[in-house]
C-alpha cells in the first residue's frame, strides 16, 4: 500500500509538467548580518506568482518553477538586493543564473553566468533619513567667514594702539601703501577687476591689514551665498 517517496514525487511532478525547485541562499554580510536584521523576506520570480520564503539560515526554495526565463528579486523591507535573470530549461540541466539590470531587455542575455544554487547578498541597507542640520556655536565660529569677521574686529580694535607704537618712517610707508590699496578698492568697486588685480599685484606686500579685511569680506560674502544655495 505504501507508495515510495520517489513515486510520490514523480506523480506530483507529472502534474505540473516538469517543474524545478529553484534553490539558493542569502549570504549574510555586514549590511545584513542575520535573519533578525532581515525580517520576513521572500524571493520572488517575476511578479511573485512563484516565490519562496527566506528561512532562519538564509536558505530559500522556490518550488515548481516551469521552464522559462524569469527575473528573480528579493522582497525585503530594509535591504537592497541585486536582481538576477534565471533561465529554467525543459531538460534536466541546471538553471542558468545571470545578473540583470532592471529595464534592460531579456532577449540579449549577459555573458556572465553566476553559480547555481543561487547565492545572494545584501548590496545596501535602505537609509530613510536625512541628517539634521543642528545649531552649534563652535561650528558657527569655525565658519571661515566668521573667523575673518572676528579677525577684522580684533584688528579694528588693535589698530590705533599699533599705530601709536609705530615708527614715523614705517608710518609714512604704511600710509602710502594704504592709499594704493584704497585706489585698488575703488577700482574693484567700479567693476574694473583687472585693474584692481594689477594694482594688487603691483602693491606686493599683502600684510596690509585693511586689504586683508576687504578681501576677506568680499570673498566670504560670495561663499556665504553659495553656501545658502547648496542648502536649498
Amino acid at each position: 500500500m505504501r507508495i515510495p517517496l520517489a513515486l510520490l514525487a514523480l506523480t506530483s511532478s507529472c502534474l505540473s509538467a516538469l517543474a524545478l525547485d529553484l534553490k539558493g541562499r542569502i549570504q549574510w554580510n555586514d549590511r545584513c548580518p542575520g535573519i533578525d536584521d532581515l525580517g520576513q523576506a521572500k524571493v520572488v520570480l517575476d511578479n511573485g506568482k512563484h516565490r519562496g520564503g527566506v528561512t532562519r539560515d538564509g536558505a530559500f526554495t522556490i518550488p515548481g518553477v516551469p521552464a522559462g526565463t524569469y527575473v528573480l528579486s528579493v522582497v525585503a523591507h530594509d535591504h537592497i538586493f541585486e536582481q538576477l535573470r534565471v533561465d529554467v530549461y525543459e531538460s534536466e540541466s541546471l538553471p542558468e543564473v545571470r545578473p540583470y539590470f532592471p529595464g534592460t531587455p531579456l532577449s540579449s542575455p549577459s555573458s556572465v553566468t553566476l553559480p547555481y544554487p543561487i547565492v545572494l547578498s545584501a548590496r545596501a541597507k535602505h537609509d530613510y533619513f536625512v541628517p539634521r542640520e543642528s545649531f552649534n556655536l563652535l561650528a558657527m565660529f569655525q565658519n571661515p567667514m566668521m573667523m575673518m569677521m572676528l579677525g577684522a574686529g580684533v584688528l579694528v580694535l588693535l589698530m590705533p594702539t599699533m599705530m601709536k607704537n609705530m615708527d614715523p618712517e614705517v608710518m609714512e610707508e604704511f600710509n602710502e601703501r594704504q592709499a594704493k590699496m584704497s585706489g585698488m578698492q575703488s577700482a574693484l568697486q567700479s567693476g574694473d577687476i583687472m585693474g584692481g588685480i594689477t594694482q594688487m599685484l603691483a602693491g606686493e606686500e599683502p600684510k596690509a591689514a585693511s586689504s586683508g579685511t576687504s578681501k576677506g569680506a568680499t570673498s566670504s560674502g560670495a561663499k556665504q551665498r553659495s553656501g545658502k544655495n547648496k542648502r536649498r
Partner: protein
Amino acid sequence: MRLFILSLLAACAQALHSYEAGVTDWHKPFAGVPLLHSDSTSPVFHRSKREDGQSSSVVLSATQSNVLAAYHSVNGSLAWRHLFEDDDNIIAFEKDKDVVATLSGPGGAHFRIFDSTAGYLLSETRLHDPASGRLQEPESLGTNVAFGSEEKEENIFVLTNGHTLRRLDRRTGEVRWGWTAPDQTSLVVYSKIRVMPSTVYLLGLTKSFASYTLHITSLSPETGEVINSGDYPSSITSGLSEVFILSDVNNPDTNPQIVWLEEGAIKSFRLTPDLKSKFSVVKGAVYKTIEDVGLSEHGQFVATTDDGSGRVVKLTPEGLKVIWEFSDSATSPQRSGSIYSGGVDVAGFPYIARVFWMHSLRLASAHVFAAHLAEGKGLVTGFTFPFKTGEHGVIRHVAVEAANPEPYRVLARLALTTSTGAVQMWQQDQLQWSREEGLADIRVAELVELPEPKIASHSDRDQETFSARVARQLLDAKDFPQYAVNFVRRFVTGSYASVSASVAPSANTSEPLSRDAFGFRKVIVAATSHGKLYGIDSANGEILWSRVFGLGWAAQVGGQIVPVKMFVTRTVIDGDSPQVVVVTQRKANNGLVDTVIFHVDALTGDDARDKSQSVDVLQGEDIVSGPLVEAYLLRTEAGRAVVCLDEFLQVHVYPGNDEATHALEKILPSLRIPLRTGPPGQRRLTGHQVPQQVEFTGKHIAYPTWSLPFPPTEDIRAIFARPSGPVASFGKVLGNRTTLYKYLNPNLVGVVTGPPSTAPPSDSAACSIYLVDGGKGTIIYHTVLPSVAGACDVKAALVENWLVYHYYDNEVGVNQAKGHRVVSVELYEGYGVDDKRRSSELSSLSNETTAVSVYEQAYIFPRGIRTLTPTSTSYGITVKDIIVANENNQIQSFPRRFLDPRRPKQKPTAEEAEEWLIQYDPVLPDDSKRVLSHNYQVAKTRRIITSPALLESTSLVFAYGLDLFFTRVAPSNTFDVLSESFNKPQLVITIAGLALAIAVAKPIVARKRLRERWYN
C-alpha cells in the same frame, strides 16, 4: 544625465529627519481578527521555555487577514507575526514546545515551521501543487498536523488533501515517507491524526446516504506501512466536529479511543493497532452535542445534555467516565449559552473553563474546573468579570491558561475574542489588555476636520455687573506673567508651532478636541466589517470613541453590518460640530438585505439623530429596504445630503427633510449617473438621469439614457472617479508662453476591464483601461494592457486631468523586458496649445467634450504595488505627488516631476528647462529617502486616504489595511512656513553680536572723530 537627476533629487528631497520619525507619523501594527471557525486556527495559549529556564507565554492565533501572530500574554504587544500571501490561506496551525507548524493553501499545499518565540521561518515545504489541492468545506477539512510523541520528537506527521499522510523532519522539513490512500476517488476523507509510540491512527469519514461512516487506518510511524484499515458501523450526521480521538499523555498506557455522538448517545471505540475491538456507549443521559475543548490529548472533553448542562467526560483505563457536571449550566433565559474551553498549566495538568453571560447582572462569569485537584475529586473555582458588551459585542471564543499556585486555588487567564474583533486578556476579574483587532478590517474611513480651540474666556451673561467683570478680568490676569515669560521665550528661541512637531495633546489633559495651528490634527472616523465605528485621533492613533452598530429588527435573528460608504455631512466650516453618515448594508441571517444609515457626531460618536444613548449600541435608520446600488454625497447651498439609489433605481435622500428634497430637485436636471449594469459576464456601463416628476411611490426613479457595452472578452473590474478637490489652475503655461488647458470634464470616470471571471485563465486575455465621459458615454481614452494569466492587477488613480496607472508587463514582445510599469497620462483641451474649450463648464451635450489631446509616458517601476493615490491639499496649488503602498510593506511617495508625461526625450531646451522638465529616463529611481513609512512594516495596505491640512503645502496621509499608518507630506516642501532648518538662534546671536560690536565701536569711533577734529 543620471547624475543630474540625482543632484536634482538631492536638491528637492523632502526626506524625513530621524527625529521626525514617530513624531509626525505613527504606525499601529495589527494581526487581524482571529479565525474562529475551526479549532485548528483559533487562539490558543502557548508556553515555551527560554534558555534561562524561565518560561514565557504567548497567545497564538491565525487571523482573517491571513497572518499568524503571537501576542505576549503579559502586555498584549505583538511578539511576532508572519504575513501569508493572499492566495495562501492558513488552514491549520499546531504548536509544540519551541515550534509552530502551519498548513496553508488549497488542501494544505504549503507546510511551514516557525520558531515560536521569535517567529522565524525554520523551513518551508511545498507538499503539492496548489492547483491540485482539493477545496473542502470547511477549509480545514482533510488536513491535520500532529507532532511525534515524546521519544520521536523529531517527527511531524502532516495530513493533506484528505488522503495523503507524510512524515517530515522537524528541523529541516524534509519528507521521510509519504502515504497516499490507495483509492483517492473514494468518498473517504481523512481528517485527524493521532500519533502513539507504535502506531499512527488516521481517522476519516466515508460518505454514505444520509450520514457519514467512520473509517480508520493505522500505520507504522517508522515506515509508513499500513497495519490495518477499515470502515466501522456508525452513522454520524454532523460531520467531523463531533468525532475525535481521545488519548492521555499523562497516562500513555491507556489505549486511545475514538468518540462520536450518534443519536443522542456518546459512543466510543478503543483503538488498537489491529483495529479489533467493540464500541461501548456512555450511559446516563441523552446528549445534544459533544465538544473537543482542545484537551483530547489529556483525555477530556465536554458533552452537553439535552437540557443544556455541560458535563466533563474523561478517558480512564476502564473507559469513558463523566467526572463533573457544571452546576446551573442548563439552558436558561437568565444567561447566555456557555462557551467551553480547555487549557493547561505549567505542569501540564488540564483545566476546563466555562464562560457565559448573565443577562440579569450584566456581567460575564467564568467557572474553571480542574480534574486533578482536591485529591482527584475535581475542583471548580468561579469568578465574574465586567465584560463591556456595549463596547465589544458578545464573546465568541475563549482560550484559557491556568495556574495553581497553592492547593485549592486556581488562577485563570482568559483570552477572549469578541464579535467586534477585539482580543482581550482577563486575569480573573482584571482586564490585562485589550486589542482592537477589528481595525485590521476597516471598510471605509474619512478624515474629519476639528474645530478651533476656544482661547478667549467668554462670559455667558450679558448683564454682568461692573465689579463682577473687574473681578473676572483680574482673575484672568493672573495668567499674564506666565504669558509674558512664554512670549519672551518664544521670541528668543523661536519655539513657534513647528510643522515637524507632534500635534498630540499632552497626557492627562481633559481639553475638548481641537485642531492644532496647522490643521494636522483630525479625527479619523473608520467603520469595520465587524460592526464597529471608531473615532481615531490622527495625532497619535489613540481611539477617541467607538460605537457598535445596532442591528435594528435583525437583532432577533442576527446579522452583519457591512459599511459601504462614508460621507462627511457637516464640517466645522458649517459652524457646528462635524457629523458623519455611514451607509451600510445589513445582511440579516434570514437572508434579507437592507440599507441602513448611521449618523454620528465625529467628535464624540454620539448619535446625531438622538435615537440611542451614548452607552448603548448605535441605532441606524433603514433608508432602503433592499440592497443599495450606489450612494452619493449631494453638495448644495443648503448643506450636504446623502443620495442613495436602490436596485429599482429609486432615489432616496437622507436626511429626508424638505430642504434636502428641494435641493435635490434643483440639481436634478444636471445629474448624470453612470452605473454598472447587466449580469456578470455582460456588464456594461449605463448612464442614468433622474426625471423631475416623482412616481406614485413618491420617489424619483432614474432612467437609462445611454449604454456603453464592452467587448464580450471584457468585464468591468473597477470604476474609479476623480476626487472632488479644488483645481487651482485651469491651464499650464509652457516655456514659450503658450498655454495648455487642462481637460476637466466633471463627468469623467475611469473603468478597468478584464477578462470575465467565467473565462478560463489564459495569457492572451487582456485588460483595458478606459476614461469615459459619464454624461454621454463617450470614450475619451482607451488602452489595452497585458494580463498576468488572466488576472488584471491594474491600479489606477485619476486626479484633475492626470491619470496614473500601474500594471505588470510580462509581454514577451519587443526586447522581452518584463517588469512593473507605471504610465502617466495627461489630458488637455482641444488639439494643441492655446485651444481653450472651457471643459469644466461645458454642457455634457456639447460636442467639444471629445476634443482632447493626450500626453502619456510609461516608466519602469521598481516593484509591485498594492494601491496608489495622489496627495491632496486645501487649495490644490501644491504639486501632486503619488503615494503608493508597495509590496515591500512600505508607503512611498513618487514626485510628480518624475511622472510628468511631458518629460523631453532629449536634453531639455531652455524653454523646457524653464518649466522644470527633466530628460526622460525610463527607470523611475527607487529612492529610499522617500519611503514615508521608514522602519515601519505597513503590511497589506488596502487603501491610502489623503486629506488636506490647513497649510496649503501639506497633505495628510492615512493608510489602512492590516496596519494603520499616518503621516504628513509636503510635496513642494513646506513653502508656507519658515523652513525647519532656519536657524533662529544664529540670527539672534548674529544680531546681538552686531549690536554689541556697535556698542563697543561707537565710543571708539566718536573718540576718533573727536581726535580728527582736533588734529586735522
